[in-house]
């Protein structure tokens, strides 16, 4: 029997109430998923304004799906991330003829307290953003959902319409590519700094 976490129970209850358009449940649902969805979209499209617009679009689609009586097959998180993935895909389809924005161009630096901490975190963040940008689309999905947002392998599989076995393979290849990219990037910096 599948273990159901407390968070999953709360999220399922929220979605059930949101289906009846209970304003409090809709507000709680938005509060719970806004930041995770934004982060996912942010790493997929880079531009902060587009990230905000697309995140709002995800919630509009959630609303429309609830109105149509659509069911979530696994967990609410997997269902909402699946919708977010489709929203991003639609966004790229619309912009197919336009030049793609480099991922690291649009990423805003995080605001940490203290100049040294800010520089360290900003450098690490920049390196990570660049490394994530070098992944394939599917690998990036797995990395963001699985490690940035902590979804289970089953949930990621449901969101991406794949089997859990395929997700295990994807996460292995994605982490290998990511670690290679981060290592390569930092060794380039060392070599550049020495000159």
């Amino acid at each position, binding site marked *: 029997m599948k273990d159901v976490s407390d968070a999953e129970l709360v999220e399922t209850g929220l979605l059930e109430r949101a289906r009846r*358009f209970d*304003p409090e449940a*809709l*507000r709680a649902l*938005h*509060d719970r998923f*806004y*930041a995770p969805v*934004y*982060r996912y979209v*942010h*790493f997929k499209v880079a531009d*902060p304004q587009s990230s*905000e617009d697309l*995140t*709002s679009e995800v*919630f*509009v689609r959630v*609303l*429309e799906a609830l*109105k149509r009586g659509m069911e979530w097959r696994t967990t609410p998180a997997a269902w909402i991330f699946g919708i977010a993935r489709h929203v991003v895909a639609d966004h790229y389809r619309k912009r197919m003829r336009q030049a793609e924005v480099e991922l690291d161009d649009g990423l*805003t*630096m*995080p*605001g*940490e307290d203290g100049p040294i901490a800010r520089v360290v*975190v900003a450098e*690490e*963040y920049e390196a*990570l953003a660049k490394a*994530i940008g070098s992944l394939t689309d599917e690998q990036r999905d797995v*990395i963001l959902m699985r*490690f*940035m*947002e*902590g979804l289970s*392998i089953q949930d990621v599989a449901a969101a991406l319409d794949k089997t859990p*076995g395929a997700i*295990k*393979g994807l*996460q*292995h290849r994605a*982490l*290998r590519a*990511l*670690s*290679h990219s*981060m*290592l390569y990037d930092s060794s380039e910096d060392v070599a550049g700094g020495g000159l």
Partner: protein
Amino acid sequence: MSGDVNWGIETDPDTILALALDRVSAGESLGSILSSAGADAEWLEPLLVAAITIRRMRGAVPVPSGEASLAGFLARARRVAPKSVAKPVLRPWWTRLSDVLRLPAGFAPRLASVAMSILLVAFALISGLTLFLGSPSAVAAQNVLPGQIVYPLKRLGEDILLSLPQSSQSRSAKVAE
């Protein structure tokens, strides 16, 4: 790669990595996982470090307040929410009757109380009669003779029975008795 006791009989690298990541999620330190990973530690280490780095950078992503998104979301919800069908209010019969009869305002409650009083009196009469006719004293009164104390009671019972609506055959039988 693998063959270490820590992963049991598992030899598939994808599964070994998934098991190691589960231990990271459970809060086990990287050093502890790697020290027990045997020959797998070498290839696992950079992958686990990458996974931990991503998780650590989660809080560094600048997320906007989301107020505008929430306002738009709730406004949209109000627009698309199915309109609730107003249920007809069921008015009591006396107010409807009062409307039909065009009685003055405030008369309806009095109409209701009068009707209830009539109903209660009728119910009490019927109940009393049923109890009296079916009671043991009434049965006993069938064998009394004129001059006895309960004889008027017997006559009263007979009169009431004869006055009730019934078939002519049973009425003749009652008269014959």
